[in-house]
């Protein structure tokens, strides 16, 4: 489906000529001329404008009545006035009308200081009210749901929240009841508004009518700082803004990114953070039980001593873990999941391979796939991106339930269906024949832009490889790689599944999906079996607990198999944020892990977007950064990763993964970079590396056209050895950023990296 490609027009606003994309609404077009038109009900994320609040009235030459800027598309040559007395009077009157029944209880309102009604009253209101009648009064606040409080006195009936429920989440639970001045926002017959995305209405509310029950009265806007990062609680990797006060995250807000989350958050992402930071069960709620208990936040190293986990010093914990792992050596296995960053994954892989000589490392829940298949699946031309889920002619969900696998994509798919008439079908991997038939029919009926959104579990089990092969054949048959906006998008089982695979946390691949030098190791299922029958001795769990039913790894093998595995393992070393059941029972050493708000590093979105996780608050207790713990553990087993700070860890990653080569953290920035879209022009365009040595090094880490299997890559990229001189970091990286991408491109990938979407 064609993406909107507006042409630029020029119009006049308040006497100035301004360029803006044609047909954008005036309120948005005005911003191009630094003119702000106030709005309450207008929110483009909610669909078509409704023109209800009347705050955005402007004067347009040639039209008698004032027009709503939120619903008037800008046209070439339009002459708009926002500062005439007529406009000002209309705006003042709308503010006056809105404040008639508003209680003006700003001093005790949680929204005070970050309230659009306050700002607009100040900026556009008349400053006085002529309304002297009694105001309406209700009981307030009232519960709307366990998470949201509603204050109906403050509501200005802008319709945003009900539009969200009805038109975005499409749960149609939140509605307006009654009519006229009696209208109020409510649910049916006192039922709570409980839905997967309900928390978004708090953020949408332009007044203090909908507030977060967990955030209410915890801070004033001037007490807090915003910290942008990425939520790594699921593969959707929504961009978030954390509200921080006194080193505590009090609130999670959306940091809108149209290519990731479209400005929405799921309730889990929005409300789960406190539990992550403080544990799902605090000691005080533990009924005076042991201080080390399931559900607690791990904030210091724990060591099993006499059958019980007890807090110990880092020195002791590292010592014990190091000795045990070294003893197990090549009989050690490792799993990485949860919000493990690419850097941690890379270091874990190297610790295992280079430090312990063990290839048994996995981040896939579904079991290993032949490397060749993994590489083909990563073909940029075949890669669909998030916005394709909205604009494609059809999306086929294959063994994938967006609402649980990556909730925010559920909203994106609904948007596609609702706004663009996208076809949406489901299919199970059990019936490959049906898949073929359905996909063919979709392309024929809806159009060639077909995106197959598939879950990692499609590739699980003994027929996994067979299925993936069939999927790739199907993609080939339907030419998905050649059609703009078509392609495959896999939702991995774990939040950073894609990043971990690309950084080498696979039994059969080195970083960058290159062949593993030392041969293939065991996948998760085989690790369980190996531990159970004694072929493996030790297990390193990086943000994973296969015995925790909520952990994706729980599905990687039978619960009984994992039970036996952990029972039999002589050593279980874990790196955990929360103490889960399996770790509580079986771990010998537990290192405290960071929550995503405490962490620095990169993750890779399922569509290949590298995103930065930024530290927003201090690590609790004696928690150390994950990369550092792995590096220190490396020291104990005689492996020096050569990493002394988190930036060096990232640099190591960019050097190790050919198609991340030359990236810098600055480039990734706050919006992320899809590695498939990085510019790759030909050498002849100059800016060639100026010395041979540099060129050599740039070749090594360049995204090779044959990306994963070129001889050159195998030869030079072995182990993705870190830059021998860590100090050469930033400057060289910057240099590489240009030179690297200028590497001669040969073969099928020529210059088409950006075309996959």
């Amino acid at each position, binding site marked *: 489906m064609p993406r909107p490609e507006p042409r630029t027009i020029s119009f006049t606003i308040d006497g100035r000529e301004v360029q803006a994309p044609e047909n954008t609404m005036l309120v948005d077009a005005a911003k191009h001329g630094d003119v702000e038109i106030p709005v309450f009900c207008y929110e483009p994320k909610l669909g078509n404008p409704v023109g209800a609040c009347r705050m955005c009235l402007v004067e347009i030459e040639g039209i008698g009545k004032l027009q709503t800027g939120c619903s008037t598309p800008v046209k070439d040559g339009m002459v708009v006035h926002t500062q005439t007395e007529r406009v000002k009077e209309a705006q003042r009157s709308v503010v006056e009308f809105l404040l008639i029944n508003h209680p003006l209880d700003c001093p005790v309102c949680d929204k005070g200081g970050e309230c659009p009604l306050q700002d607009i009253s100040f900026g556009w209101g008349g400053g006085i009210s002529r309304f002297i009648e009694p105001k309406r009064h209700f009981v307030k606040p009232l519960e709307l749901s366990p998470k949201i409080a509603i204050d109906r006195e403050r509501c200005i009936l802008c319709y945003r929240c009900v539009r969200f429920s009805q038109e975005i989440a499409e749960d149609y639970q939140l509605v307006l*009841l009654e009519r006229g001045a009696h209208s109020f926002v409510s649910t049916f017959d006192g039922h709570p508004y409980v*839905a997967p995305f309900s928390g978004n209405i708090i953020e949408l509310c332009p007044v203090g009518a909908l507030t977060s029950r967990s955030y209410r009265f915890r801070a004033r806007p001037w007490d807090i700082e915003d910290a942008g990062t990425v939520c790594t609680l699921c593969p959707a990797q929504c961009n978030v803004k954390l509200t921080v006060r006194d080193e505590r995250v009090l609130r999670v807000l959306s940091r809108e990114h149209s290519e990731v989350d479209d400005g929405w958050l799921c309730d889990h992402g929005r409300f789960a953070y406190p539990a992550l930071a403080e544990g799902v069960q605090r000691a005080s709620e533990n009924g005076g039980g042991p201080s080390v208990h399931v559900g607690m936040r791990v904030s210091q190293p724990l060591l099993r001593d006499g059958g019980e986990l007890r807090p110990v010093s880092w020195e002791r914990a590292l010592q014990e873990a190091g000795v045990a792992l070294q003893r197990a050596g090549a009989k050690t296995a490792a799993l990485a999941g949860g919000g493990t960053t690419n850097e941690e994954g890379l270091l874990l892989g190297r610790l295992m391979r280079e430090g312990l000589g063990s290839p048994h490392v996995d981040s896939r829940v579904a079991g290993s796939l032949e490397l060749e298949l993994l590489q083909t699946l990563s073909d940029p031309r075949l890669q669909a991106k998030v916005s394709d889920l909205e604009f494609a002619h059809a999306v086929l969900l294959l063994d994938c339930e967006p609402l649980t696998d990556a909730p925010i994509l559920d909203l994106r798919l609904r948007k596609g269906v609702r706004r663009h008439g996208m076809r949406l079908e489901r299919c199970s991997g059990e019936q490959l024949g049906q898949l073929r038939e359905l996909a063919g029919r979709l392309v024929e009926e809806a159009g060639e832009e077909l995106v197959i959104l598939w879950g990692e579990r499609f590739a699980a089990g003994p027929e996994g490889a067979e299925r993936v092969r069939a999927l790739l054949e199907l993609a080939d048959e339907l030419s998905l790689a050649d059609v703009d906006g078509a392609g495959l998008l896999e939702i991995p089982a774990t939040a950073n599944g894609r990043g971990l695979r690309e950084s080498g946390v696979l039994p059969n691949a080195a970083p960058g999906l290159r062949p593993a030098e030392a041969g293939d190791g065991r996948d998760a299922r085989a690790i369980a079996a190996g531990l159970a029958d004694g072929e493996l001795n030790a297990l390193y769990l990086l943000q994973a607990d296969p015995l925790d039913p909520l952990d994706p790894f729980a599905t990687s093998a039978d619960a009984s198999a994992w039970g036996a595995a952990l029972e039999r393992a002589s050593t279980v070393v874990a790196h955990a944020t929360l103490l889960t059941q399996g770790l509580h029972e079986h771990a010998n050493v537990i290192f405290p892990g960071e929550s995503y708000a405490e962490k620095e590093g990169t993750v890779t979105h399922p569509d290949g977007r590298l995103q930065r996780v930024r530290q927003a608050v201090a690590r609790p207790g004696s928690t150390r950064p994950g990369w550092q713990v792995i590096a220190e553990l490396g020291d104990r087993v005689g492996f020096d990763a050569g990493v002394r700070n988190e930036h060096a860890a990232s640099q190591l990653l960019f050097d190790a993964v050919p198609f991340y080569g030359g990236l810098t953290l600055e480039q990734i920035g706050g919006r992320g970079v899809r590695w498939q879209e990085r510019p790759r022009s030909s050498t002849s365009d100059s800016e060639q590396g100026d010395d041979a040595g540099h060129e050599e090094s740039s070749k090594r880490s360049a995204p090779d056209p044959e990306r994963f299997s070129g001889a050159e890559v195998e030869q030079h990229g072995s182990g993705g050895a870190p830059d021998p001189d860590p100090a050469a970091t930033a400057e060289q990286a910057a240099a590489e950023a240009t030179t690297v991408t200028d590497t001669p491109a040969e073969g099928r990938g020529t210059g088409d990296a950006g075309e996959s979407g």
Partner: protein
Amino acid sequence: MTPVPRLGNAPHADGWDRPADLEKDPALIPDPATTPVPQELRETIEQLMARYPERHSAAIPALHAAQELHSWCSPEAIEQVACVMEVTPAYLDSVASFYDMLEQQPVGRHSVYVCTNISCSLRGADALLEAVEQAAGEDPEFNVRAFECLGACDIAPMASVDGVYVGPLELADVPQLLDDARAGRAVLPHKQLATRLVADPHANSQEFAPHAPEEGRR
């Protein structure tokens, strides 16, 4: 919940002070397995939905039908309609509470809508309403309401009794009006709108005898 003291003419509507009951489950589209719907109502609603290209269009007629059965749009009634129409009950509640004729509270079986809009009130409708209210008293059979213009200003002041328009009414008509409704008889036959000829002397109306009155409804 402590009641909020209210000032004289501050507005108030039912529901404004009602919190959500956190013990309840969210109100999703009712499950047919756990939402019994009277067969007749189900069939009526299904027929109504079939009349329109889009099933939602049947919302108002379906709510009317449910109200016939339950005498008001009770939560139960709304859930039944929601179940057949496959929409959330909140959707229907939102619709029902928008319209004057869909009752939000339990009401009497016989509705007496007294028009109190301009033309009727110029001719004494407010006193008429008071008289009807007084005469109906606490009788649970009656649902006496002031109504906005019913579109029969030619017979002002008037009322719609179970859907039958009568007027012009005098205070003395009130007892019989209620008796007729209660008995299910034709209400005030000689004052029914149905019997009236067009006032226009240029129409040929005046040649004809008055039309027959309507039977009592309900």
